[in-house]
């Protein structure tokens, strides 16, 4: 990997083109007032924002630009029954009443469009190129896969957008990550993003928005692109995006809220103008050869602590002095030793889901691998689809049958064990191979130990009961 730091500005980046079109005004020496096209909300980070509006006697300025769903807190079994956990139920009920009182469309439990907020936006065609999108959730960067400026915000900012459809934002620095060449067998988009983060660290892109470019990115499907943009925040970036192309247009065409008939052609013509000029210059650029990338797995407690599955955890003398105490603390939590290989490490749980990897292509990838195979006896395998539509599609394609034959549980949509806000928690001390985005201490439950990986690497762990190199099974 080579790295260049450049400072001069010439042509325009895609980011600047979109940003400039959304600036209402700029405060002298301060931030810009940025207009927001679409605002997604969910039950956990919105109640205090609505309370703020009520306290100030304000309404929602553009309720038709706000889309709500219940995802973080919802159970993933028996969704037709009342939510058992009282505080979770109250949050979901408050979302229902806030949406009703403020005139916001809610795709709540029981609705055919319900699901993880970053899965439903794209699949409904709400997420579109050239737009600004926010949500009180750091993985809002997912929507950048369509060539949108999409980023996570805090609850005070949710309140601002509800009240004014605007936010005060300072323009971030820009980084481009170019990935050229062909991916190796068994390597998928999750491996690309885990590889990038392992190279630049969990804070390597803090202060930046990242544009992903290059032939390896162009070759990816929309869902694979979403996985990469989703984890931009895990390298510290506020957001990540990919210029729209035919793959983007083909994905969007015919979706529920995508432009229809003659409006479609007009929009596609405008979307085709959304690219970074050849002479545009970034604050920072990285170049990665796709053929360097192997199936990846994390061993530590931040997403930057990743290695090729075939590799080994760094030994102590490979870690620089100033990082040693964090490294040792992390390995102590994980119950792992420096210098070892993870191959053969026994796992207790496999979680296939989250806004990173719960789309139909992820489920198809796993199903194609496990068809005719059975899970290892003592491993618990949860597959949690990203939305009701993904769940329905999986059933129509017979994927549910493949999973049940393999001993996998296909559950109902939600964020689930990615963050363990509902009952789906990994018990203390247990190891979980997870297709989610964070391996922080306690993320999947108090004292739970998370190994992040691709759906394929998770699938092979489900079958063998241990960490394995999926390339040996293809």
């Amino acid at each position, binding site marked *: 990997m080579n790295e260049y730091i450049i400072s001069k500005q010439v042509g325009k980046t895609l980011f600047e083109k979109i940003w400039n079109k959304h600036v209402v005004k700029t405060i002298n020496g301060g*931030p810009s007032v940025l207009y927001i096209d679409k605002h997604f909300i969910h039950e956990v980070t919105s109640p205090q924002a609505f309370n703020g509006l009520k306290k100030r006697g304000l309404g929602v300025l553009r309720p038709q630009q706000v889309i709500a769903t219940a995802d973080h807190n919802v159970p993933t079994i028996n969704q037709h029954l009342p939510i058992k956990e009282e505080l979770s139920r109250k949050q979901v009920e408050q979302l229902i009443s806030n949406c009703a009182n403020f005139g916001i469309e809610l795709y709540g439990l029981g609705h055919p469009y319900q699901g993880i907020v970053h899965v439903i936006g794209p699949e409904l065609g709400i997420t579109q190129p050239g737009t600004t999108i926010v949500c009180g*959730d750091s993985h809002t960067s997912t929507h950048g896969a369509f060539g949108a400026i999409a980023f996570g915000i*805090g609850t005070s900012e949710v309140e601002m957008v509800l009240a*004014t459809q605007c936010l005060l934002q300072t323009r971030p620095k820009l980084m481009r990550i170019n990935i050229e060449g062909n991916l190796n067998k068994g390597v998928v988009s999750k491996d690309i993003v885990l590889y990038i983060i392992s190279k630049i660290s969990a804070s390597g892109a803090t202060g930046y928005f990242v544009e992903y470019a290059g032939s390896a990115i162009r070759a990816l499907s929309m869902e694979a692109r979403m996985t990469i943009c989703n984890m931009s925040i895990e390298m510290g970036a506020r957001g990540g995006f990919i210029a729209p192309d035919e793959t983007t247009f083909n994905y969007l065409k015919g979706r529920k809220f995508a432009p229809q008939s003659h409006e479609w052609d007009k929009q596609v013509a405008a979307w085709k103008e959304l690219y970074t000029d050849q002479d545009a210059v970034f604050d920072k650029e990285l170049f990665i050869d796709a053929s360097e990338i192997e199936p990846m797995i994390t061993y530590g407690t931040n997403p930057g602590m990743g290695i090729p599955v075939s590799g080994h955890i760094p030994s102590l003398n490979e870690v620089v002095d100033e*990082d040693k105490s964090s490294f040792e603390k992390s390995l102590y939590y994980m119950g792992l030793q420096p210098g070892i290989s993870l191959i053969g490490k026994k796992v207790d749980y496999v979680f296939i889901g989250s806004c990173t990897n719960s789309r139909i292509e992820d489920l198809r990838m796993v199903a194609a691998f496990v068809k005719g195979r059975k899970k290892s006896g003592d491993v618990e395998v949860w597959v949690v689809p990203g939305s009701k539509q993904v769940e329905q599609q999986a059933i129509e394609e017979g994927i549910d049958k493949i999973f049940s034959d393999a001993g996998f549980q296909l559950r109902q949509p939600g964020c689930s064990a990615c963050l363990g806000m509902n009952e789906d928690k990994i018990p203390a001390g247990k190891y979980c191979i997870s297709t989610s985005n964070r391996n922080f201490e306690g993320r999947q439950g108090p004292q739970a130990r998370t190994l992040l990986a691709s759906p394929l690497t998770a699938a092979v762990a489900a079958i063998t009961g241990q960490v394995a190199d999926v390339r040996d099974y293809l």
Partner: protein
Amino acid sequence: MMKKNINTIISTAVPLTVENVDTDQIIPARFLKGTTREGFGKNLFRDWRYKDDDDQKPRADFVLNNPAFSGRILVAAKNFGCGSSREHAAWALKDYGFDVVVSSFFADIFSNNALNNFLLPVLVSDSFLKLIFELIQNNPSEKLEVNLEKQIIRISSTGGEESFEINTYKKACLINGYDDIDYLLSLRNEIEEFEKARV
């Protein structure tokens, strides 16, 4: 809401030397079920503070449980506040009693959330951070002085100081107790004009 204007803060400080503190550590997801902004301080750093998820079992080795350290200033190692966008992290720190977090590197969303809650993130150099850690650990009664108006953080006993950056707009908001939302609401006409011009 726990909002008030801030300007000069002189206080002892609590040193948290762990790097890459993510917001899941500051406040774990299972404690995000509140629907108001209050009361998150009791679960601040919950799983580092208590054993077995039991608030009757404090971990003696965690700095918040060390009676030697207290104050309105948290001094934290680099990349503080990474991960989830949960504003509950800022609410928990503020509710616990912190008005300032000092670090050599902050995650973006955390910084915004902190500023929106009148919790001042003070960005210092690696060497200054190292110096403060050493001083506080050697002498927990060491005081720090944070002067927002002058944008200076100073060590009371030695007079060693460093200036810090903050954008002028946010600085004015903090000193005067203004919200972004007050400002944005005042732009209603301009926002509507902007919308019309785009169609």
